[in-house]
């Protein structure tokens, strides 16, 4: 029932959901890195113990330890001993930025573009369905959440994520909502990277406004189009950024 009390209750469930397959330590490391970069795990937040983390990911304790070591090497986590000890997130802006830049460089253009294509087809379908199924009450609530200009990257990312999740919920499809959540966990750190720039925080706000206006008009095609255009714009920016990172001249 308590919908929306804490977006990261479900995001948190996704963060620590069990992993399978090979290279588990890398997967644990990747999941935690994403969560830190996204601000789902905040600077200074205490991580679960190695044993607890191993249990939640469904991996061996030694695997969780290995992942934590890798995060320590990247400078994203600090482990302190003693009574108030434990592993704490130490991600400053510069550190998360360099982690993300490295990831942008490591992925090919075709992978990044495909990520945008798949995400926009899910998010666009959610928006189109929502246009037929939204009530005035729903709109008022989502406007209250979505139509705010953030002056901070983490807050802007979180707002964009919550907005997309709310629109997915308005589609009335439980499967689409689950897929949206899964895709956010997988893609969100890169997809909405442009929110680090104030100019694009404004662009995203304009896009959310346009999508909500289309929902209010009950215009499914316009709602889909605004959503797809928004995602495509963010991917175009990402590819330009990749070019700049690879060829600073």
């Amino acid at each position, binding site marked *: *029932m*308590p*919908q*929306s*009390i*804490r*977006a*990261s*209750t*479900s*995001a948190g*469930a996704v963060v620590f*959901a*069990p992993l399978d397959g090979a290279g588990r330590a890398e997967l644990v490391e990747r999941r935690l890195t994403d969560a830190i970069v996204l*601000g*789902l795990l*905040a600077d200074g937040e205490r991580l679960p113990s190695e044993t607890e983390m191993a249990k939640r990911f*469904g991996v061996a304790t030694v695997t969780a330890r290995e992942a934590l070591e890798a995060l320590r090497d990247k400078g994203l986590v600090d482990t302190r001993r003693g009574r108030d000890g434990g592993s704490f997130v130490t991600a400053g802006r510069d550190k998360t930025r360099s982690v993300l830049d490295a990831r942008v460089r490591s992925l090919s253009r075709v992978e990044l573009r495909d990520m945008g294509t798949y995400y926009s087809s899910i998010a666009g379908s959610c928006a189109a369905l929502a246009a*037929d*199924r939204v*009530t005035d*009450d729903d709109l008022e*609530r989502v406007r*209250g*959440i979505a139509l705010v200009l953030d002056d901070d990257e*983490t*807050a802007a990312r*979180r707002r964009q994520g919550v907005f997309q*999740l709310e629109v*997915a*919920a308005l*589609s*009335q*499809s*439980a499967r689409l*909502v*689950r897929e949206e*959540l899964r895709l956010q966990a997988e893609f969100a750190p890169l997809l909405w990277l442009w929110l680090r720039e104030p100019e694009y925080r404004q662009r995203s706000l304009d896009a959310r406004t346009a999508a909500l206006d289309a929902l209010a008009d009950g215009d499914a095609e316009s709602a889909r189009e605004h959503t797809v255009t928004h995602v495509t714009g963010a991917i175009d920016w990402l590819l330009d950024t990749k070019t700049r990172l690879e060829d600073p001249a």
Partner: protein
Amino acid sequence: MNAPTSTDLDCVAIVDTTFGDVFSLIDGWRQRIEQYVATTAVDAAGIDALVETLVVPDLSRDGALIIGAGFVAQPGFIPDAPWHLAWWLGHANTFGVTGPAAPALRRLVAVEDEHSESFRDYTTLEWWRVPAATGERHITGPYVDYLCTDDYTLTSTMPAFRDGEMIGVVGADLYVNDIERTLLPAVRGTGRRAALVNASGRVVVASDSSRATGSLIRRGAWDEHRVVPCANGLALLVDD
């Protein structure tokens, strides 16, 4: 439009009994909570212990329709927990459960720190807002509850009071799947094209499979149908 037929009324009786049974559970919990807070100094541990003893037996019952239940406090009512949810998830509730393990009855983990960046005010949500405004029982949904059931859900809530002041809402969640199984025969039993809708016109169950659950029959279009009111804000829309 025409007066309801006897088959319409048979359907409404089944709908009202189904949700009435859920609300009578909730009302029982509400009374116990109101008695408790009238005589006891309130703290989070005490409220949690009470709510657990109230809702867990009903959530554990074989064939129980409810898949989540509890008490959500008025902000500031519980001195040591300004924002507080005492909410339990039943065995049938698969939220957050992955892999082959069968889900166990468990407490919903919610972060209640209003300074956390991801915190959001639950008093703006329909299942709180409507009963708080009207003082009445309310059914929210169908809606995709992505934080608590991960599925298509109906939430029944009612307010609880102390000395005339609202102290929170008491409620329970149902899966729309289960409600469809329970109520579809009754809606079909009208022998007409019929749909059970919530107060906004959102379809809960329809006789006609082309009318998707969750789609809207907007209130402006209700006079095209025979509107037979049900309890708790629901209505049966029947076509002759």
